[in-house]
């Protein structure tokens, strides 16, 4: 609870800080319509939420690893949720469920959706496609403030008498609909629903903006086939969000009706707390279909931006073009489409028609193919590269590894016959924490390290970044890999204790759970290093150069700290794709191992491929006449420097 206080407090001081920093009106900063400022707002809020979400996981990991631990020392933080006398304080089992629920909600929605998409879609879309700002700065601002309001309400739910929502992040009714069945399903659940509704609005406002901006505001020459993979990923992500979040909204709305207006969409034949309820004819399974119609695409809403970011960073730091650009775009699109027709694989054991189960197994396993293609392409991009290990690159390689390691177990879980035994065990927990949770988190971290210089004009400290990476990388594997073992042993998720079952009483399991908890604490501790590095470097970091990573994309042609409108003069034009790294003969054209997107083919006659030479005529006709002095002058200067 106190963590939530700290959070609310931090958000507040964060606003104040910027007020000093930018020395402008509070309103001008706080209610900014500049996409870069909004991106930073999303990022800082996301980081704060990540710490809250992480801390919650530590609280329940302690219980799982050390079932007999005395919780009295946490009483100042948790208050009445620690029961029992001093010396034998116990975590309240319902609060345990609340911790699990809020950890999931916060991480999936607030950190990996808002914190990841909100930050990087906002920051990179205009800068990488060459736009002055988002299509609608005002809607963009609203998007953040709806998210903020949603955050405040979710944080406030920690202080309610019955505690926050506790029915798991999926909040299946009837459990989530009946306060008689679970304390958290009282006002905690109401807060959850209100908060999520605001969150959905925020997501939709953001998504509409991203889509419109990518379609309409690309600079001259930035065709879809020249878009950096980051933008492709953000674009498809926004479309997925736009199509699936409204379904979550409808699911939530019907749940609100059932809770408050006495309807029976999800409720039927219930006898709870000594009372038969009036609800008849509803279907609890209907909710699950609606929820997972968002819930599954949500996995890709979280993952695709991370993959996009990784594509960009791996190409830049391997000094090689991303391998198979077209296949990468194709697999993003294919994953995007398939993500809508696999949802019921979360429901194989709900009693649905076995035939339907078969259909969803086929569809689910198809999605493994484009995912595999992506992994292979990343690996081939490294092949014969000249890899520089910046912290961002380390996290990107970590992402690919986690994506593979978590992805392969999806082949087991997507197979409905095999899923029967493993469904809702720790095997599932291991699977999605690796492939979705950790992989996306690594993508987010990679993005922060990589674009920090563009955001704040300063560098983050590399050494701290290295320490942060290695502790996190090792930590994440130590936390989630052993979960496969206890998952195969059948350990159920969301269990407060396992001692009631003969099947789960073995010292090896105890040891493993303890091991996982210790690893979790260390991994969480390593994030403090990042927190320090992030906020310290914001003000005191080494000054960055304009293009510190020698990267090709347009954002690095903007001034070190771009003002409103991003480029002071004309927006640069785009003449080539974003991946001309280590092109043969580029030296003869006066370039080193990279040729930025805004360099015309006419300036690189030696390194052009045959079909690119054909483009020169087209360039002269359509582009160069419009392209004014500024950029050419800059290019000439660069040539001088390199020569």
């Amino acid at each position, binding site marked *: 609870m106190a963590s939530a206080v700290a959070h609310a407090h931090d958000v507040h001081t964060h606003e104040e800080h910027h007020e000093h920093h930018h020395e402008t009106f509070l309103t001008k900063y706080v209610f900014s319509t500049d996409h870069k400022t909004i991106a930073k707002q999303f990022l800082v809020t996301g980081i704060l939420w990540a710490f809250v979400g992480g801390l919650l996981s530590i609280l329940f990991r302690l219980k799982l690893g050390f079932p007999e631990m005395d919780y009295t020392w946490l009483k100042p933080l948790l208050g009445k949720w620690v029961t029992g006398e001093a010396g034998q304080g116990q975590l309240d089992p319902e609060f345990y469920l609340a911790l699990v629920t809020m950890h999931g909600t916060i991480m999936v929605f607030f950190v990996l959706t808002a914190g990841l998409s909100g930050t990087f879609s906002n920051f990179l879309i205009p800068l990488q496609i060459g736009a002055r700002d988002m299509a609608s700065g005002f809607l963009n601002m609203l998007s953040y403030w709806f998210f903020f309001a949603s955050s405040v309400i979710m944080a406030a739910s920690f202080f309610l008498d019955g505690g926050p929502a506790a029915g798991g992040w999926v909040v299946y009714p009837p459990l989530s609909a009946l306060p008689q069945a679970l304390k958290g399903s009282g006002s905690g659940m109401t807060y959850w629903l209100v908060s999520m509704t605001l969150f959905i609005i925020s997501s939709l406002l953001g998504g509409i903006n991203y889509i419109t901006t990518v379609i309409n505001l690309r600079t001259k020459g930035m065709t879809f086939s020249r878009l950096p993979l980051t933008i492709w990923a953000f674009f498809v992500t926004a479309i997925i969000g736009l199509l699936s979040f409204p379904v979550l909204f409808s699911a939530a709305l019907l749940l609100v009706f059932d809770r408050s207006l006495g309807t029976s969409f999800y409720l039927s034949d219930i006898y709870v707390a000594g009372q038969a309820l009036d609800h008849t004819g509803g279907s609890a399974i209907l909710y699950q279909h609606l929820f997972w119609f968002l819930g599954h695409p949500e996995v890709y809403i979280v993952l695709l931006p991370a993959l996009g970011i990784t594509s960009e960073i791996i190409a830049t730091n391997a000094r090689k073009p991303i391998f198979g650009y077209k296949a990468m775009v194709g697999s993003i699109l294919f994953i995007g489409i398939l993500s809508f027709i696999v949802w019921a694989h979360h429901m194989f054991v709900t009693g649905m028609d076995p035939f339907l189960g078969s259909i969803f*197994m086929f569809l689910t396993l198809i999605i493994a193919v484009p995912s595999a293609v992506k992994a292979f392409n990343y690996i081939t991009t490294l092949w014969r590269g000249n890899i520089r290990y910046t912290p961002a690159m380390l996290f990107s390689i970590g992402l690919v590894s986690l994506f593979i390691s978590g992805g392969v177990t999806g082949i*087991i879980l997507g197979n409905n016959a095999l899923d029967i035994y493993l469904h*809702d065990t720790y095997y599932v927990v291991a699977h999605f924490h690796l492939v979705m949770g950790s992989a996306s988190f690594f993508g987010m971290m990679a993005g922060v390290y990589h674009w920090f210089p563009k955001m704040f004009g300063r560098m983050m400290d590399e050494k701290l970044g290295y320490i942060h990476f290695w502790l996190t990388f090792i930590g994440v594997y130590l936390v989630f890999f052993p979960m496969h073992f206890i998952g195969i042993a059948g350990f159920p998720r969301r269990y407060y204790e396992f001692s009631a079952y*003969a099947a789960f009483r*073995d010292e090896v399991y105890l040891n493993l759970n303890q091991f996982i908890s210790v690893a979790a604490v260390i991994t969480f501790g390593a994030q403090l290093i990042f927190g320090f590095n992030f906020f310290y470097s914001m003000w005191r970091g080494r000054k960055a150069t304009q293009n510190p990573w020698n990267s090709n994309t347009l954002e690095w042609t903007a001034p070190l700290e771009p003002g409103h409108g991003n480029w002071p003069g004309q927006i640069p034009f785009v003449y080539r794709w974003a991946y001309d790294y280590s092109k043969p003969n580029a030296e003869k054209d006066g370039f080193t191992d990279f040729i930025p997107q805004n360099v015309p083919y006419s300036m690189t006659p030696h390194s052009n491929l045959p079909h690119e030479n054909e483009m020169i005529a087209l360039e002269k006709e359509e582009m160069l006449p419009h392209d004014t002095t500024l950029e050419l002058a800059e290019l000439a200067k660069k040539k001088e420097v390199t020569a």
Partner: protein
Amino acid sequence: MNGLLLTSIAVLVLVMFFIVFRMSNLVSILRTKSKKGEEIDVSTNNFHAYLFLLLPLAGTIWAFWYGIKHSGLWWQPDAAIHGAEYDWLSKIAHVIIILMFLVTNAALFYFAYKYRYKRNHKATFYPDNMKLEVVWTIVPAIILAVLVFTGWNLWRKVTKDAPENAIQIEVVGKQFNWIARYPGKDGKFGGYNFRYTDDVNELGLDFTDKNVNDDFQATELVLVKGKPVQLKIRARDVIHSVSLPHFRQKMDAVPGQPTTMWFIPTKTTQEMREELKSNPEYLKPDPSTTKGDPKDMKARWETFDYEIVCQEICGRGHFSMRMRVIVLDEKEYEAWVAKQEPFVVKNKEYVSEAIKRQTKMKQASGQALVENTSMSN
């Protein structure tokens, strides 16, 4: 006092950390000023490359060693007819994914090591290769197709209709325990209605239905070895899930929407315990018996039981919602059944009152509103 001490130590460590950080920072600023030109710091590049080679290797070796060392432990012992097929399929699938995991991760980390930055070296411009893309689209697709079809095969076997001769048992989940109901001699369940539920009539049985008269309830699920059993599953309040790890089966219990599953137990509880004696993992003591008198200490095979594990979050007591499952041979089972008393016989007075109440409720609200759920076969 302890807290204060710990806090001050923590603060001190943090301060020291900060000072070290500041100093190394200043030093590195001085250093980079002296050697201009190289914008990106690649001085630690080799270090990362070596770690990428060593750590995954060490981790993989550890995971294999640990997994193999306790290989008798991971899968719960299986006791269902389709269990052997399930385990076989699962093992094959795991071998395949472990190979995928090893090959791809090995390539990733080996390339990360091998192609680490070298001064004056230029990467190979290699933007695409159609053939490669086609190959690694088709190969995974074929592997997946094989897995899908073998899985599908098993899925159809597990989910097809229960055999005619299956013993039928109703399993009802409520916060926070399970109740089993057997149809009795007539082999027919009496109807129920959730509105009839109360503290005594926990299953909401309809006593005006004659089929209910020989139905008996149990707090343990008793099954027969070698005979198919069909569970008719429902929930009273929220969603629960009947998970039977030893029988490789699982099915949610949903209020208002009864579900069903079936399987064939292959070993009695006693047989399974005997069998586990030969598994070193089950010779170790059960941790729950080691705290008291050493005389009470029992090995894991002795305390072994089949169990229903609630596998869908259902509230405060979710973690303890267990039901013991006992598998007997046919003779023992019949002896057990003979000892069971029907609910109606056990609660005569209550039932005669309840019949009046239920009849009245039916008349008051009209037959249509209080339609019983029939449980006929």
